[in-house]
């Protein structure tokens, strides 16, 4: 049960901001999200969207635990 967070326009696209999702890896999580929402899958794959696992940016795949926090971050705009 990783906690998944969407920021900026991603949560507008998905219609949710925060969900608990059962997934063993980032790759599996992306597949799962793509399966239920094609628009969100495209938004997550857009240039500049980064992923933070437990508040650290990660590239590529990673294993998720029950307490993982996964955040999808669109390009940061500054304040």
């Amino acid at each position, binding site marked *: 049960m990783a906690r998944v*967070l969407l*920021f*900026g*326009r991603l949560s*507008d696209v998905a219609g949710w901001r925060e969900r608990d999702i059962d997934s063993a890896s980032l790759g599996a999580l992306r597949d799962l999200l793509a399966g239920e929402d094609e628009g969100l899958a495209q938004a997550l794959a857009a240039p500049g969207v980064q992923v*933070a696992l437990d*508040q650290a940016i990660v590239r590529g795949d990673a294993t998720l635990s029950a307490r993982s926090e996964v*955040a999808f*971050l*669109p*390009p*940061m*705009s*500054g*304040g």
Partner: protein
Amino acid sequence: MIILTGQAFDPGALLSEFCQDRTETGAIATFTGLARAEQGDTTTLELEAYPGFTEAAIGKIADEALRRFDLHDFHVVHRVGKITPGEAIVFVATAASHRRAAFEACDFLMDYLKSRAPFWKKETGPAGARWIEPRAQDHADIARWETPKP
């Protein structure tokens, strides 16, 4: 100190506090960013941060500023949530022995905060809502601080 707040704040009150009990600080620079009405084009600005992650990212840059400009101290306060025109979005204060360091550190921190800090910004006006990405000027501003590659 780095604070994110959902409440309106008074930059002056922060400056008063920041000036207290300094006998070797000769120079304090501040910057306050206010939400602009854009002649009615913007009615609300909404800023989203990632609590914990956002403060940590700003903290890394502030540590760099401390070393690079030999700062005595700094203070960053950033609004999140809905902000109406005329309200303060961001306040940065820097303290140093001399003014050049205080100015440059404040300028440096603002360039980072305005272009690369982990915030997501939505403007709502008569034409609807839109998410804002950094302006070309913001990229140019922050490029001033980067060491050219040989």
